[in-house]
C-alpha cells in the first residue's frame, strides 16, 4: 500500500469544523481558550450537530468521550473526539453545562452507540446525567457509593495533599501509615452521623438485573417458560481477570447480556491528576500490563504534543521496535489464551509463553523490568539498547519469530475442531462495528481497514512499508486470523526498522523529572495491540496535569459485547470475550 504524497491543504478537521459552524450559526463556536482546539456546541443543538458530523461531514467513528471539571469556571465540560474511518485527524467538539447539581446534558447514544459505556463512566465519576441514555447506571463504582470521585472537590480518605510531591515526605518526612492519618483508621470515609447499624443494604444488583431485557414467558406452544440468569465472574477462569458478565439465557442461548466492571478500578485518573507529568509514566505501564511499551508511547505522544518537542531520531526507531515486539507477544498470548477458553487446555498457551519470555527478556534488559518497562521519556527513551541485546533482537526477528508464527499457523488455523468453534460465531457487521466505536483488530476483522499507524501516522510509521491487515467476515475466526496477519506485518516493520535505525542520541532534550508543560489540551493516540489507546491531557501550566484521561480500547471494545453474544450459545460467550482481547487494568483503570 502506498500513500499519496502529502498535498499542502489546511487541516481537514478545521475545514469540517468551519462547515459545522456555518450550519449551526450561534450554536457552534470555535474553542478559543489558549492551547485548545475544537468546537464548542450548545447542549440543545448537540444531537443535531452530532448527527450532521456523522452523516454529512463523514466523521463516523466516535473515539473518545470524556468529562472535565472546570471548577474555577463553574463548568462541567464533555469532550468528544470523532474520526473518519478513512483516516485523518480528529474533529474535536465539546459541550458545557453549569456546574450545579443536577448537571444534565443530552446523551449521544442515539447517534453513536459507542458513547454508551463512556457516558456511564462520566456519570459515575463526574455526576453528569445524560438525558436519553438507555441505561445510565454507575459503571466503575458500585450503586450506592457516595459522591462522584473525579470531581475536583471530592477528596479520598487517604488524601494527603492537592498535588505531588507531597510536602510531608521531605525534609521532615517522618513515616506515618496513611491509615493513622484518617478519621476511620482505614481508606474509608463516612458522612458525619452515619450509623452503620441502621444502614440497610439496598440491593446494588437490582438495577443491573432490571436493565436486562425481559424475556417472553410463553413459548410457541403456549407453555410458560422462564429465563435463567447466569453470572460469569468476577472470579471466573474465562473472564481474563475480574470482569463480570450477567447473562440472561433461554436454554443455552444468550438473550441479553450486561458487562459489569470496576472490580479493578484503581483510580488511575484521580491519581494521575495528582501526579506530575513524568510520574504518570510508570502508572501507564499498569494500564494494559501486557504492553507497557505501547502505553508509554501513547502518553509520551500526548505530552510531547503539548510541549512541542521533537523525539530523537534513534528513539523513534527504538519505540517502533519495542511497540511491535510488544504487539507480537500480546497477540501470541491472546491466541494461546483463546485456545484455553475453548478447551485446548494449555498447549498453545505454553508455546506462546515461550516466545513471550524471550521477548520479555529483551524488555527486562532494556527497560529494566519484564512487564513494567517505564521506558519512554518525553523526547525519547530512557536508555539505548545495549549492543548485545540488539543482536538478540536481530536474532529473534530474523531467525525465530517468523518460523514460530508459522508453527502456530500450522498448529491451529486448519484444525477442524477449532474452526468449527470459531467460524460464523460472534458476527459483527462493519456498520455496527463503527457505530459502537470498535477499534483495533475487532474493527479490522469486520472489514474496515482502519489502523492508526496508517490512518493518522505517528512516530516514524510513515516510513515503513506494511499492509493494514483486514478480514471481512467479522466472526471469531477472522478475529483470530487477523492476529496472525498482524504479527506477520509487525515482523515486516521490525525488519525494516532494524535495518534503518540510525545511530545517535536517544533523548532530544535534557532528562529532567520536572517537565515544563505549557497550558493547553492534547490528545495522543496510538494503535495499541488492542485498539486505539488515547490519552487526553489538559495542562494549566502547573507541574501536574489538570485532566488526565485514558481512552482505553479494552473498555470501549466491550460496547459491542451484547450485540455479538445475543443468540449465541453461552459457551461461545467465553470465546467471544476472549477474542475481544480485554485487559482489566486498562478496562477499569
Amino acid at each position, binding site marked *: 500500500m502506498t500513500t499519496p504524497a502529502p498535498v499542502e491543504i489546511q487541516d481537514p478537521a478545521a475545514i469540517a469544523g468551519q462547515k459545522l459552524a456555518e450550519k449551526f450559526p450561534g450554536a457552534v463556536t470555535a474553542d478559543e481558550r489558549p492551547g485548545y482546539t475544537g468546537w464548542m456546541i450548545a447542549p440543545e443543538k448537540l444531537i443535531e450537530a452530532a448527527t450532521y458530523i456523522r452523516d454529512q461531514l463523514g466523521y463516523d467513528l466516535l473515539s473518545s468521550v470524556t468529562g472535565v471539571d472546570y471548577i474555577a469556571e463553574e463548568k462541567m465540560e464533555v469532550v468528544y473526539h470523532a474520526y473518519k474511518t478513512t483516516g485523518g485527524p480528529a474533529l474535536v467538539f465539546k459541550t458545557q453545562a453549569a456546574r450545579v447539581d443536577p448537571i444534565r446534558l443530552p446523551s449521544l447514544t442515539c447517534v453513536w452507540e459507542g458513547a454508551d459505556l463512556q457516558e456511564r463512566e462520566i456519570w459515575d465519576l463526574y455526576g453528569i446525567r445524560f438525558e436519553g441514555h438507555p441505561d445510565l447506571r454507575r459503571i466503575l463504582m458500585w450503586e450506592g457509593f457516595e459522591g462522584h470521585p473525579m470531581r475536583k472537590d471530592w477528596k479520598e*480518605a487517604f488524601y494527603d495533599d492537592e498535588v505531588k510531591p507531597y510536602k510531608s515526605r521531605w525534609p521532615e518526612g517522618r513515616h506515618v501509615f496513611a491509615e493513622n492519618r484518617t478519621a476511620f483508621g482505614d481508606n474509608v470515609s463516612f458522612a458525619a452521623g452515619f450509623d452503620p447499624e441502621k444502614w440497610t443494604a439496598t440491593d446494588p444488583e437490582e438495577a443491573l438485573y432490571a436493565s436486562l431485557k425481559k424475556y417472553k414467558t410463553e413459548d410457541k406452544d403456549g407453555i410458560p417458560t422462564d429465563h435463567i440468569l447466569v453470572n460469569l465472574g468476577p472470579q471466573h477462569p474465562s473472564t481474563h481477570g475480574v470482569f463480570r458478565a450477567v447473562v440472561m439465557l433461554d436454554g443455552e442461548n444468550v438473550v441479553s447480556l450486561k458487562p459489569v466492571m*470496576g472490580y479493578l478500578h*484503581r483510580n488511575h485518573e484521580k*491519581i494521575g491528576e495528582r501526579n506530575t507529568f513524568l510520574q504518570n509514566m510508570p502508572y501507564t505501564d499498569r494500564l494494559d500490563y501486557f504492553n507497557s511499551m505501547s502505553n508509554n508511547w501513547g502518553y509520551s505522544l500526548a505530552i510531547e504534543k503539548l510541549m512541542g518537542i521533537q523525539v530523537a531520531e534513534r528513539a523513534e526507531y527504538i519505540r517502533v521496535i519495542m511497540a511491535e515486539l510488544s504487539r507480537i507477544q500480546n497477540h501470541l498470548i491472546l491466541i494461546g489464551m483463546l485456545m484455553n477458553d475453548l478447551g485446548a487446555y494449555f498447549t498453545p498457551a505454553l508455546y506462546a509463553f515461550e516466545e513471550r519470555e524471550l521477548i520479555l527478556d529483551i524488555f527486562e534488559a532494556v527497560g529494566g523490568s519484564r512487564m513494567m518497562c517505564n521506558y519512554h521519556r518525553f523526547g525519547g527513551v530512557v536508555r539505548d539498547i545495549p549492543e548485545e541485546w540488539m543482536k538478540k533482537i536481530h536474532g529473534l526477528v530474523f531467525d525465530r519469530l517468523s518460523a514460530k508464527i508459522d508453527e502456530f499457523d500450522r498448529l491451529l488455523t486448519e484444525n477442524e475442531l477449532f474452526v468449527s468453534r470459531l467460524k460464523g460465531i460472534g458476527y459483527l457487521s462493519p456498520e455496527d462495528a463503527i457505530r459502537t466505536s470498535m477499534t483495533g483488530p475487532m474493527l479490522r476483522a469486520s472489514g474496515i481497514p482502519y489502523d492508526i499507524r496508517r490512518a493518522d501516522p505517528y512516530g516514524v510509521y510513515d516510513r515503513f512499508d506494511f499492509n493494514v491487515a483486514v478480514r471481512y467476515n467479522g466472526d471469531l475466526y477472522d478475529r483470530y486470523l487477523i492476529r496472525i496477519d498482524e504479527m506477520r506485518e509487525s515482523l515486516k516493520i521490525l525488519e525494516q526498522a532494524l535495518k534503518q535505525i540510525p545511530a545517535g542520541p536517544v533523548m532530544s532534550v535534557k532528562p529532567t523529572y520536572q517537565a515544563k508543560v505549557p497550558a493547553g489540551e492534547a490528545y495522543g493516540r496510538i494503535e495499541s495491540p488492542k485498539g486505539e489507546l488515547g490519552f487526553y491531557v489538559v495542562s494549566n501550566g502547573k507541574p501536574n496535569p489538570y485532566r488526565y484521561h485514558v481512552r482505553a480500547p479494552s473498555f470501549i471494545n466491550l460496547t459491542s459485547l451484547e450485540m455479538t453474544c445475543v443468540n449465541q450459545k453461552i459457551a461461545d460467550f467465553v470465546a467471544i470475550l476472549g477474542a475481544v482481547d480485554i485487559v482489566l487494568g486498562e478496562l477499569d483503570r
Partner: protein
Amino acid sequence: MTPNELNSPGYDVPEELQNVVAITTLDKIYNFGRRSSLWPMMFGLACCAIEMIAAQASRYDLARFGMEVMRPSPRQSDVMLVAGTVTKKMLPVIVRLYNQMAEPKYVVSMGACASGGGPFKEGYNVVAGIDKYLPVDVYVPGCPPTPQALVYGLIKLQEKIDKQSLKTVRWYQKGPDSVEVPIPMLGPDLIDPRRIPEIKAKAAELANPPAPVEESAA
C-alpha cells in the same frame, strides 16, 4: 524432599534401604504431603496475575513443586495467591472465596498492591493491604514480583508448612471448622462488619465534635 530428608534422626536405616524406607514422624509425613501438593486457586486480580501465569507456564513451571493444578473452585484449593490490587468492589468477593476454601488454607499476598495497597494505595477504591481482612502467610514484595520471586515466596510458604505440627494447627483445635471472615459490605463506602461500633462512634463524634478544650485534654 528425598526419603533421606524425610528420615527422622535417631533411627538408622541401612544404607541399601534408604531410598525405599524412611522412618519419620507423623508431622513430617503430614507436612510433606501437604507442602508437595499445594493447589493454588485460579484467581488473578491484576498485573501480578500475569506473572503468576508466567510462573505456571513453560519457563518456570510450578508443576515442579506440585502446584500446577490451578483450581477454579475455592473448595478444591489450598492456597490463595492474591495477585494484584484489591479493590473495595472486589473485596467482598475475595473474602467470600476465602471463606469457602477448606482448611488447611494459606494466603500468599503477591506484589506491593496486595501487601499494602501498592502504588494505588491512595486511590478511593483501593484496599490498603489484603491482610486487613485475611490472615496472610507470605508477602512477596515487588511490582510485579518476577516469576522467580514468586516461586521463592512459595518456597517460603513450604518452609512455613514444614514447621507446623499436627498438635497445634488451628484446624484440629476445638472450635469452628475453618476460619471465617465476616464479609464486608458495600455501603456509602466499604463497611467492615467487625468495625461497625467503631465506625458508629467515630461518625457520631464527627457529627458532634467535642469542644477543642476537651480534645486537647484527652
